[in-house]
């Protein structure tokens, strides 16, 4: 295997990894502020794909513009889910909250199956037939590049939201100490609702960006919930920067494993890293900083 093949695998890994990063950051934000793993995260991504799919087939507008609409819809959806379902059991055991998110995920998946059927769909846009060649040995498919660019911009925006805005600061305060934060005058419910909504929107947008290069069916999100969970653990649980880096690392590792050991090892290596990190360095590879 020559150096170009490895380079190509790294490039492909980064392209996939940026989308993973977006999904992982959303989950990390929700975890940081609410201390629960949102097991409906993959389902929210799937909803994002279906929303974009429906809008695309109705209007013909490119998913690369529609992701804004998808993000807004998923934001509203996350906000409503928080106030209707998450808030009433605020303060209950973590176990119950986790089960609740699992239930929400199942309902989303089954509802989509009820409406759209279990059949899979894909979309076709002209961009899919375009490949960029870098030298004679490296080539990248255009939709992946565009998705990568948008994902990077959004990841940066998410970072700035958390670091620079009042709401972001409040979210970090809650992550730091959720008992002290309300004493400082922070409206915990409001901040949690916004964080949950932003996290859901990130998952939904990732779905929208994945749509042109993948296919969709109601169960498509499941594997991404798991991957997002791995990223959040690698990234040090509540750090969104950590989760973003972990997403990129995961993408590259998967591709290199696939290249050198074979595709069927890719997931095994993902989870091997996951187990190793949990047992050797539970604070995560990129641990330390919070939210």
């Amino acid at each position, binding site marked *: *295997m020559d150096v170009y093949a490895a380079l190509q695998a790294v490039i*492909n890994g980064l392209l996939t990894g940026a989308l993973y990063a977006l999904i992982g950051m959303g989950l990390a934000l929700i975890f940081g502020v609410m201390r629960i793993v949102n097991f409906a995260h993959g389902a929210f991504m799937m909803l994002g794909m279906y929303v974009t799919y429906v809008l695309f087939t109705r209007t013909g507008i490119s998913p690369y513009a529609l992701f804004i609409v998808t993000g807004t819809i998923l934001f509203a959806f996350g906000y409503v889910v928080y106030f209707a379902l998450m808030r009433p*059991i605020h303060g209950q055991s973590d176990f119950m909250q986790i089960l609740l998110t699992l*239930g929400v995920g199942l309902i989303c998946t089954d509802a989509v199956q009820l409406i759209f059927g279990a059949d*899979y769909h*894909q979309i076709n846009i002209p961009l899919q037939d375009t*490949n960029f060649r870098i030298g004679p040995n490296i080539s990248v498919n255009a939709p992946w590049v565009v998705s990568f660019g948008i994902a990077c911009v959004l990841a940066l925006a998410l970072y700035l939201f958390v670091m620079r805005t009042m709401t972001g600061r409040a979210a970090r305060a809650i992550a730091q100490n959720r008992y002290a934060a309300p004493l400082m005058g922070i409206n915990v419910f409001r901040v949690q609702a916004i964080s949950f909504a932003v996290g859901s929107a990130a998952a939904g947008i990732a779905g929208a960006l994945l749509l042109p290069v993948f*296919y969709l069916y109601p169960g498509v999100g499941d594997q991404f919930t798991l991957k997002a969970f791995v990223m959040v653990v690698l990234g040090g649980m509540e750090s969104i920067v950590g989760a973003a880096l972990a997403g990129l690392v995961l993408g590259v590792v998967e591709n290199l494993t696939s290249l050198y050991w*074979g595709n069927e090892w890719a997931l095994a290596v993902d989870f091997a890293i996951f187990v190793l990190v949990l047992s050797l360095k539970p604070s995560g590879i990129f641990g330390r900083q919070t939210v």
Partner: protein
Amino acid sequence: MVKRPAFYLALLLCGMFTVPACAGSRQDAGEVLRIGVITSLTGSAAAFGQAHKNGYTIALDELNAAGGVMGKKIDLVYYDDQSRPDQAVQGVNKLVDQDGVPIILGAYSSENTRAIVPAVTQKSIPLVMPTATADNVLETGSPWVFRICAGSSAYAAATLDFLKAMDAPKSMAIVYENTNFGQSNADAMDKAARAAGFDVVDSEAYQASSPDYKALLQRVKARNPAIIYFASYLLDASTLMRQASQTNLNPQYYTSAGTGFAAAEFPTRDKGAGPYAEYTFSVSQWLPTARWKGSKEFDDAFFKLTGTHPAYHAMQAYAALLTATAAIRQANSAEPAAIRDALKAINLPETPFGPIKFDEHGQNPHQVLITQVLEGQYKVVYPPEAAETKPVVPTPPWDTRRAK
């Protein structure tokens, strides 16, 4: 205390899981004869499960219009295995214990079919397999199982015969999905290819449902095989061919063990690989243009039902129900053992799928064809007596195709 919303949600969830289990009742002695069907109506193999259902529906309508069997109307009881083997096994229990069916048709995939063989054997219920190509579905030697379709060894043999006839170069890579269907077809091809003097330069297993096979295709490219043999389902087949173009992988022959590469959706732009499917070869069990009597009529009925033309999976389901009904008629009984004995002895020289007659292992020796996608259509290119057109080889490199 449990707060309300979560409590109701829990109730709702419990409801979702328990409702399906209460449906259905035992076979009544009345006017209908129930036949069990297990297939994948949801999940990743849903496209094939739907093809099954369409095939069964057409057969059912024809049979009932002709008066059913033993003076009773036939009723099909479907069980959706959700493309999961554990669910398929559940299906056997449900269909036999609750619905009291005397015979089962299914499942769709090799994985799920292999999983239900012990279950039907234990319950002494005959099973007619329409589409499972992995040869290990017959390995237990169970006297209760019968397979309509040709298996993975027949696929490998037909592909190699074709390649030899074309005088193709002898280096091959095998790329397969890592469940029963893919593994069985890869093993069969590996053995047969080596025996035929081919050099198997690479063998790659992969997980279906992955969004990205580019690294895998790069591995294949590095070995530079003249021939690639795929054993893939539909979603992976489409992704593989799209990404083969992105990696600029240019073997002389893209060959395959049917299934994804032979699905009606595969050459379409909306649901498959579209232009990227062009020039790929596939083993095929049946085509609407097959020389068997009734093929054309089946095609018409299918078109009327769905607005599209069928691939062989629908025909195999159709043939499975035809065979099961013929056995029940011959046994003149709805007892599983009597139907099993009738299946062993059955001889249908003329069905739209070709002759159906099971050997001592329960295998119907069905002849397979080699097709190539040309301008979005499956065309038979081998064997010569069935060929509609000459194959286009070597496969044009991706660069020259883009110019079009």
